[in-house]
């Protein structure tokens, strides 16, 4: 598994061959608060880079989860749809959102490193 890369919309991506795993960052969960609903995409769905791919809702509001990378969904994580609160406890581990077969590794390479993302969060507090 490759190192994690990060998007400005607070998603993370790791790569295993041509299959990417996508989730939301710990920082994102801290901004959202208690997560109470998750909708993940079905296998076979095509997603575009920065296109809407999943939904996450906290007690406060609903937010879209975007795919930081284009491709075809191979699996949505049903476990988090059944237990949305688990996204708060392990957002960058077991509580990934979806996996997809990517088309262009260049999209992955262009995302931020961990250090760059941490810096981005500090400079863009919300």
């Amino acid at each position, binding site marked *: 598994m490759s190192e994690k890369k990060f998007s400005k919309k607070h998603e993370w991506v790791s790569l295993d061959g041509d299959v990417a795993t996508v989730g939301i960052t710990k920082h994102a969960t801290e901004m959202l608060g*208690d997560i*109470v*609903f998750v909708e993940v995409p079905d296998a076979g769905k095509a997603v575009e880079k920065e296109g809407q791919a999943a939904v996450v*809702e906290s*007690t*406060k509001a*609903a937010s879209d989860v975007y795919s930081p990378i284009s491709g075809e969904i191979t699996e949505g994580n049903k476990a988090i749809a059944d237990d*949305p609160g688990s996204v708060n406890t392990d957002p960058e581990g077991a509580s990934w959102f979806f996996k997809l077969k990517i088309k262009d590794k260049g999209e992955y390479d262009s995302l931020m490193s961990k250090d760059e993302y941490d810096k981005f969060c500090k400079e863009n507090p919300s």
Partner: protein
Amino acid sequence: MEIQKTALYNYHKNLGAKFVPFAGYEMPIQYKEGIVKEHISTRTHAGFFDVSHMGQFFLEGDETLIESLEKIIPADLKNLKINHSKYSFLLNNEGGIIDDLIITRTEKGFCIILNAACKENDIKQISQFLKDNHKHLLNNNLSLIALQGPKSVEILDKLIPGVANLKFMTGNNFDYEGEKLYVTRSGYTGEDGFEISISNNKVEKFIDYLISNKVKPVGLGARDTLRLEAGLCLYGHDLNEKINPVEANLKWAIAKKRREVGGFNGWETIKDLLAKGSEKIRVGIKPDGKVIARENTKIFSSENNEIGFVTSGTFGPSVNAPVAMGYVKSEFSEIGTSIQLEVRGKKYGGKISELPFYKKSYVK
């Protein structure tokens, strides 16, 4: 207009509050532990809420004050005993709700607790009916603290002996730190609890005491999930000037005597609706699955006809399921009726549900 702050603003900051602008005030939406934990600790122990943004409006006057207020408030104020409170409304000429409120009879007149976003207009509306010898004051030197939850009575009675004797929707003056506090047994969470009117310069010390008794601070986020589980309306969402008390399923809050005799704004309309029922009515809604039907979600019948809309919706931490309130055509308002909720373009099943979603435990 410059954004206002309550006397506890810095105190909240030190407790790690996240602030949002609300009704012209910078208010805590949540603290460090988050909405769900704040909600649960209110239900299991006790929580405190700074609701000092709400208007504490005091009126004094002779007998004619009652006549004046009864023109805009449909409660039976003549028979309201001193230190007793009622939930009521300010009504416009069409019977629409200008604001919902709690009115308490005091020794010299009345105290009305008004919603922060409405208070200035409320006072204008009330003033139309007041006479020259009626005195009124929106007291900004007072904070208002809600202490809610099963342990509230034990904790508050230790500090202010006697509050345990108050019954739900009654109040009294108590001594605290050399001054008088006004305490009512009431709230907005479905729990037993109190609302304490206290001068701004004593409020920090009072909160220190609550915190030393493990009372958690609770922000507007959990205030919303608590009140929704308790089936209580939020003005500006579930109620507004175009909705009347019959549609809002709040006809119980119009005094029986006054329904018959009238003499208040909008009575003609309301009398008519009381007799024949309204076209739409406020109901509780439970989505079948985990999907949250938030405000403005469209409601459809099982035959796919649009029948209404959601006015409040969230996840209820104590119910451990999504909960909502909204308005539907009255023929679809029976408990258990199957409905569909349109969320993000997809239709999800749901049912008309009894209110409250969470059973209250008031001390009567």
